[in-house]
């Protein structure tokens, strides 16, 4: 193309600007813009515009009366943000969300890695079992929420029946009603949906060159050393990636928990505070209490927290990640 020829000569700044503008004379450029139009429209109307609007609303008292047109929208400055500090449910929801994420992420990673390592060693049969372990991942989250209620039911649930079959347990915990057991049961249920992470690890494990293990074995490395010093570094990009993704997913947890514990009430008990996740509290403020301004402030706090956690995760774990390409 003509543009590449121009670029290839590396012209100085004035000509480069002219070359840049000259591309607007080409039909190709306008076709390209036409092709990306769907995204551009969506970006402006459904992403950028709402972001700005969301920030604006977070500085107002926008709520149910304003939606209905009964009251004027008033600018309240940082009031919504200072209200976040006084609202006792915010720290509660954050604590719940972090505890749940803190349990779910490592558990999922360990189980996924264990399953993938076993699948790798059983040859062709591994493909069949990979499908089996992936099935929970395609179970709708609402169904998972319902399964939590029935499987972990304190008196009748299958989990407690299995536990009580053990000689040293008389009565299993009341998972769905005891505040200290709600989050563990949610975490266990998410570990059930380990399939996606496992598939990623399986692909990573298959990519580890066999000769590294042979060399390590020749040097007399034990199975544990081979795992620690060959396997883990070689699959560290996959571990890193899933760590980031799972953490974000954990912080965003909504559907399973909302299904099981919120709404018209499905446990018969009161809505348990121990299950109040940040995304659920945000949803309620916005769409059940219609405190839109306050909810927008909550959303921005959430945005900052998710970004900060992700950044910390990246910075904190980056040095353990080994990229094969960089060494060559």
């Amino acid at each position: 193309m003509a543009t590449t020829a121009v670029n290839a000569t590396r012209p100085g700044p004035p000509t480069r600007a002219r070359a840049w503008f000259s591309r607007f004379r080409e039909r190709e450029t306008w076709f390209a813009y036409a092709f990306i139009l769907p995204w551009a429209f969506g970006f402006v109307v459904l992403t950028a515009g709402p972001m700005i609007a969301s920030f604006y609303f977070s500085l107002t008292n926008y709520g149910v009366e304003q939606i209905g047109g009964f009251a004027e929208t008033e600018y309240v400055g940082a009031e919504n943000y200072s209200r976040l500090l006084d609202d006792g449910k915010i720290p509660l929801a954050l604590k719940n969300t972090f505890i749940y994420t803190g349990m779910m992420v490592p558990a999922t990673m360990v189980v996924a890695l264990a399953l993938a390592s076993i699948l790798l060693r059983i040859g062709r049969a591994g493909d069949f079992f990979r499908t089996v372990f992936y099935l929970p991942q395609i179970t709708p989250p609402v169904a998972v929420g319902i399964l939590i209620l029935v499987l972990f039911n304190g008196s009748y649930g299958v989990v407690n029946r299995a536990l009580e079959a053990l000689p040293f347990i008389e009565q299993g915990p009341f998972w769905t009603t005891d505040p200290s057991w709600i989050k563990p049961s949610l975490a266990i249920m998410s570990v059930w949906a380990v399939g996606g992470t496992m598939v990623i690890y399986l692909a990573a494990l298959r990519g580890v060159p066999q000769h590294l293990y042979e060399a390590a074995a020749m040097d007399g490395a034990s199975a544990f050393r081979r795992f620690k010093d060959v396997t883990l570094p070689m699959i560290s990009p996959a571990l890193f990636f899933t760590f980031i993704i799972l953490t974000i997913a954990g912080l965003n947890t909504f559907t399973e928990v909302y299904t099981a514990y919120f709404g018209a009430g499905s446990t018969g008990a009161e809505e348990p505070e121990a299950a109040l996740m940040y995304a659920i509290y945000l949803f309620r403020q916005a769409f059940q209490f219609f405190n839109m301004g306050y909810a927008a402030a909550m959303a921005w706090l959430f945005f900052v927290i998710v970004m900060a956690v992700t950044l910390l995760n990246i910075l904190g774990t980056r040095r353990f990640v080994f990229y094969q390409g960089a060494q060559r």
Partner: protein
Amino acid sequence: MTAGAPSQLGPTGTGAATARLPGVAVPERRRLRTPPFKRAIFIALILGLSVLFIYPFVWLISASLKPQADVFDNRLIPRDFANNYWGDPTPGAPGDEALFSLPEVPVATWFMNSVWIGVLGALLVTFSSALVAFAFAYFRFPGRNVLFGLVLATMMLPGAVTMIPEYLIWNELSQITGEGGRFAALPDIGVNTQYPLWVPNLFASAFYIFLLRQFFMGIPRDLFDAARIDGDSYFSMFRRIALPLAKPALIVAFVFEMQAKWFDLIRPLIYLRDTDLFTLPLGLKTILDQFGTGGGGESDWQIIMAGTVVAVVPMVILFALFQRAFLEGISTSGRKG
């Protein structure tokens, strides 16, 4: 639009072989020399674990086939097949209603809503994302890198931030297209219609743009240049060369969006009020609230279980049909759920 001269390349041109999903390592099957004895132990272990993983499904199906009193009896094979909520059980027996004929929970309607919204939304987002992805992969235009950076940035944005203003947009639309509105002649779009569930799919989605762009970049440029020389317009080149070659990646986008729609609870919760408009996840939540222990229900867990089976089984079928797309998609993207 149609090409002046017939192209030498059929829709399944030679490029198909080279066009694989990038990022999926073509695994060179390693022969791990696991001794047979150890292998037997591993297989036993994995069999045990898979029983653990499959058990909830078996329990669920079995519970859905039981009468109310037996749901928690822990038998995998129901004692009594006659009194469940699937068919038309013995008249006069306790609970002589079928799941699909309970008037307050129109399961069949919800199911069909989920199916058509899922298929339509997935088709739209796949096509629009392919169009955008192709532009980023093939064309060189001013601002390309900046715009693509924006696409990637939107992937990081939590939905919560845009959720409220988007609702207000739809709310505004229902004011002007609803009864008494300025555009009342138009069909009512907005809150409490199903438009908010699929219309955003018209505008492509960052994740699929990224996925499909990677794929398009793997297709040799010569193929497109050859089509141009043959007289194809840009669009017909996209339609005749790019789309057919990208079929594997398009299927990934399609099944992922189907799954996302089938799973989604929050958008129906926000936008839908009338029971007849619900999709299956919201319907299932309604069944749970109506028949569960809370909310005045009588603990009709067998109905809830039957409803859950209706939500679970279609995904299993979709997975069986498109297993490769699911597994490749997850390895490429690593997107959870």
